[in-house]
């Protein structure tokens, strides 16, 4: 390393930083990644960020479809965070495996993870939608709009 001219070496880190910045731009535009993430240094610029995103799933139990906000299921916190950071096809499929492997029960009309000894139902994940914040400057109203959704065929 000592043979390399230091005048060039000071650019090593800025080059690495630039690669991550370009990757950030690409992933934000192509895969709806949270622009605050991934080392792009685009923090404190956009309202849409992973901490303000909500992944919502449609699951099918006994031919009925139920909509659940993943924020309310503690057992899904890890995949919930991953989907909010980067909602890629790979992560949607990962979410399907995790969600269908959990034991779901119906308590009244509300599906949730089974209490001990309760009999689990067969669950199929039908759709995942990632919602992000939309703020209307004129009306001062805030609503959640889909950032990306993924439908499973079976």
């Amino acid at each position, binding site marked *: 390393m000592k043979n390399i001219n230091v005048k060039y070496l000071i650019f*090593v880190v800025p080059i690495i930083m630039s690669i991550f910045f370009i990757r950030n731009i690409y992933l934000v535009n192509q895969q709806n990644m949270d622009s605050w*993430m991934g080392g792009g240094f685009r923090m404190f*610029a956009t309202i849409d960020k992973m901490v303000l995103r*909500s992944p919502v799933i449609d699951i099918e139990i006994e031919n009925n479809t139920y909509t659940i*906000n993943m924020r309310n299921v503690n057992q899904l916190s890890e995949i919930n965070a991953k989907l909010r950071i980067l909602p890629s096809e790979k992560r949607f499929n990962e979410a399907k495996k995790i969600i269908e492997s959990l034991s779901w029960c119906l308590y009244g009309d509300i599906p949730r993870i089974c209490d001990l000894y309760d009999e689990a139902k067969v669950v199929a994940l039908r759709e995942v939608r990632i919602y992000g914040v939309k*703020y209307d400057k004129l009306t001062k109203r*805030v*609503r959640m709009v889909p950032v990306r959704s993924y439908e499973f065929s079976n």
Partner: protein
Amino acid sequence: MNSVIDILIKKIQLIESKLSLNNDDVVFAIATQLLVVTYFLFVHELPFNAIVAPILLLPGILFREISTNKIYLSCLMAIFAFLYLYNGLEQRIPNHKHLFVYVTILFFISSFYKAKEFVYLFKHGSRLIIGFVFLFATIGKFLAPEFLNGSFFEFTGLVDSRFSGFTAIVTSLSMSELVTMRESFQQLLNSNNISDLEIQLESTVWKENLSLFMAYWTIFIEGMIAVTFIISTKYKLSMFRDLFLIIFMITTYPIATVPGFAAILTVLAFAQSSLHKSELKYLSILYLCIFVLIPIFSFPFYRLYSFIFY
């Protein structure tokens, strides 16, 4: 007045000689130790973090021979590059943690050199890293329409708890109104029928105008930091780089407190500060003081303000 200045200069000289800030090896050693302290304070992602972090980091904090050691720096670089750069999208890794790794890479490369080359590398390298961070941050602002029209600061000021104290002080909105808005927003985020709901925020014309001012002020100050830190030190404009950086720290840290970013930015600022030709290393001492005072930025200023004025 002159005697006060004389006393101040003598004090600075005393600190300078005690810390040996005229010796570049010592400056580098202090910078590496501060980097390890920063890791120690803000790293939570290591496996068995409560045990592994002290074992890995305390030796570097306590002994300069370890913090500047090539093998030690290469271990830090490998571990945290894997955690923060390679695995950076697996969990919530904020940008300043990328910065931890970039600084480690720079210090690792610098440790291979001696004398002038070593000084050039770690000081100018630190200067450029600061410049590029703010360059990307400024470009990011231009890529976000909601930032340019003031929506970002208006929305964030109303629902982000970090901004609540500031919003309550500078606008006619009360803290309880802000808490109510934040709670409604949290309910919206957690709702199952999320697409059917919306909430109404209460803003004011003054808040709107202030948000727009804050947006353009941020672009100005971040842009100026980017320019003054990236251009060569032979240009006169670069002499003002520390001034812009200190203004940024003073105007930003108490409002949008991100202690991890503040700490690593101060480490970089300290590392490059002695590039100035001044005989007194007052900037280096100032950055050391800021590093020590970073926890103060998390102080609930609003409560103090309410206590005094209400």
